[in-house]
């Protein structure tokens, strides 16, 4: 069994993001970068499948600038076996990324591709679906699990995705409940927030990660067209939140919601 996990370098979700005055991007000075939190959950899930499910090779893949090595090292320190960095300094859109991943999947031939359902920087929520389409593989999106994150199963590090008989059973979060589906392997699965609580890299893990393989592939070597079909015109910060107002009774609140806010 081989599991390919995607890892994106994104700004720290706890950082305050400021938009450049000309609206062309965000201010990146002194910005701290981390592994996309959804991808961290994907790595954790892959490691659990490996540990509790009779072994697997966990291969990480990132696409981006050379500095994304840092995030791959983090994943290796968590316990992944090796990593691939497709070096691309230019901007990419989800389709470009999916095309690159398609190539890597063809080279690596994994049984399962685990991805975050979206990256917290541009929140596109497209790459997993596009990759499955390009590969013509089955897909299961928004993998979650029945047990809560406070449950014993979670404390014992049990995986939420069940792998058996060449199939993956995935619990999905849908409106108003959970849906369980089964997909034949190989497949693409994207993960949601409530699948697991990722481990942190232990010190022995960090030390071991230094010796693990991290292969770099220049994007040009893949021989595909990754010119973005999507162009960001302008970024704007959200409007500043106005101060709230105190009301004296529920009646007044309902009245204002109806007449002023016009939401009910």
């Amino acid at each position, binding site marked *: 069994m081989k599991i390919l996990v995607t890892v994106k370098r994104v700004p720290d979700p*706890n*950082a305050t993001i400021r938009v450049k005055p000309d609206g062309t991007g965000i201010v990146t000075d002194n910005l*701290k970068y981390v592994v996309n939190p959804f991808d961290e959950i994907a790595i954790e899930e892959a490691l659990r499948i490996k540990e509790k499910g009779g072994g697997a090779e966990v291969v990480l893949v990132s696409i981006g600038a050379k500095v994304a090595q*840092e995030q791959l*090292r*983090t994943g290796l*320190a968590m316990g992944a076996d090796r990593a691939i960095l497709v070096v691309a300094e230019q901007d990419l859109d989800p389709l470009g990324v999916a095309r690159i991943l398609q190539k890597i999947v063809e080279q690596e031939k994994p049984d399962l591709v685990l991805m975050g359902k979206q990256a917290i920087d541009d929140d596109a929520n497209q790459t997993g679906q596009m990759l499955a389409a390009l590969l013509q593989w089955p897909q299961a999106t928004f993998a979650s699990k029945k047990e809560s994150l406070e449950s014993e199963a979670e404390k014992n590090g049990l995986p939420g995705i069940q792998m058996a008989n060449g199939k993956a059973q995935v619990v999905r979060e849908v409106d108003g409940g959970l849906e369980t589906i089964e997909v034949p392997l190989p497949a693409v699965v994207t993960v949601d927030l409530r699948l697991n609580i990722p481990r*942190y*890299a*232990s*010190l*022995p*893990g*960090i*030390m071991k*990660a*230094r010796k693990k393989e991290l292969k770099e592939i220049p994007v040009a070597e893949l021989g595909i067209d990754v010119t973005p079909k999507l162009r960001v015109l302008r970024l704007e910060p959200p409007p500043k939140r106005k101060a709230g107002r105190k009301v004296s009774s529920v009646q007044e609140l309902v009245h204002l919601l109806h007449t002023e806010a016009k939401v009910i």
Partner: protein
Amino acid sequence: MSEAFFHEDMRWFMQNRVDWPGLLRLQGRAPESAAEEKGTYVAILETADQVCRSLAEQSRQHWHEEAELVDGEVKVPPHIAQGYEQLRQAGLLCLPISPTYGGYGLPFLINTFYLEMLARANSSLMTIVGLQTGVAGDIERYGSEEIKQRYLPKLTSGEWQGSMDLTEPNAGSDLGSIVTRVTEEQGRFFVDGEKIFITNGGSQVHLVLARDAATFQKTRGTTTGLSLVLVPAFLPDGTRNRMRVTKVERKMGLHGSPTCAVEFDHAEGFILGRPGQGFRAMLDLMNSARLGVAAQALGVGEAAFQEALAYAKQRIQFDAPIIQQPLVKSMLTQMSINLQAARALLYRTAALVDRLEAIRNFLAQAPSESQEELRQELGLLRQIVQLLTPLCKYYATEISNDVTRKAVQVHGGIGYMASSPVAQFHCDSIITTIYEGTSEIQASFALKEMSRGSLFTLFDQIVSEVQTLRGAYPEESQRIEELVEKWIRGSLPSLLADPRYALLNAKRLAEMVIDVVAAVELLHQANRSEGKRLAARSFLDRRSLAIEMGARRIQSGDVRRLSRYDKILGIDLDTPAAAT
């Protein structure tokens, strides 16, 4: 970002103020790997950040739970035991110990960061981890290979913990009064005596400072004739050693850290280093422990500051958040600047410790005639570190007392409640000016070091460093130089007149010296942001006045001041209180 346990000041300092390639070269490693090394340190500190964050959450409600003595065994509260287990699983123990014995060989600076973070999360737990690291470090340096193999792997893995047993009922600040004795019998060593106030006294590995029986009478009352004895709770054959914890104290703070009385009744031990030379070895442990306590004090201070800042932003009085009150804003600003200054001083010292150690190890292997330059640097570094260590301990812990008290004040009445986190931080902070040598002892040590010439070595360094900052900060550089030359040097003649007058002013002088070193270090950071530039500026403004005032106070008096104090206190030294 400042809410991160892996503080911005740490990140910045390790990226900008340390010559990692130089350090690696001295260690016989490739200087090109500096970037990768730093990457590893950052990864480790990120893990520490996450673990500390969760420890802080888990332990905050359990602060009051006391360590206890149950059936002769020391029992720590659950949050301490669980927290320790979490650190153990993450591998966050004994970071500086060599990988040969199961550690990670990390720089002292990185461990200093870690201890600060851990103290901010849980100060009681930090004492246990700090001692374990210190004890392992002393064994690594002074133990025979056999001793190292026997004790280090279990300390680094966390199976065993350590303690440092110095204090006795009649030997606190004055370790020369130690009467616990170590006796040699047919090549084996046995310890008899009583130690008190021993942190984690239920540990498996005790480093005991004891007086050699053979020279007991001759050396009594001095720090010669002391040996550092490793006394294990269990002997190599698995039997229990003849020692026991007789009491676990109840305290005003640091409740989760067991403070024990330990009795040795002919317990077998193993001498570290040479018999009778134990004080030297213990000083090594104490020096790193002092910087450890400085880190602890900073961690607790930072926790209190963050709490106060958050509270002041949301507490409304007079229709506005209290942070808008000039007096409240001023308290918070002083807290912030002082923490930054103490941090700057501590990190600077910790980085010097790393360089000193690297040169020392390098020279130990290098041919003796060559390397004259390094040999010289080593000599200077020794002097500076010997001086800065007590200054760091003094300053960081006093600052911490002040910051935590102000944090209570910012909270008003709610800060005085037993359940208040800031009340807890204040109680935890107070011990830091007492153990590992009280503030008065630190100031006296620093004075002794200064009188041996280290003050001038430090000034030479500061003044030449200020030259490099002259281009960017002409006015500030000029002022620092003036403070050194005119005010501090200008005060020395008055101090030299009588050693008792010098002692009377030891804290004052210590603070003056600390202020200039911290000012220079803050100036190095001034280009980080506007806030940093203003903080450096404000520190210099405030402390220039304080230094000038200190100098005037020193210059205006002499040793007769002490006899005036006797009169103020109404003490007649001919009939001491003890005689009545």
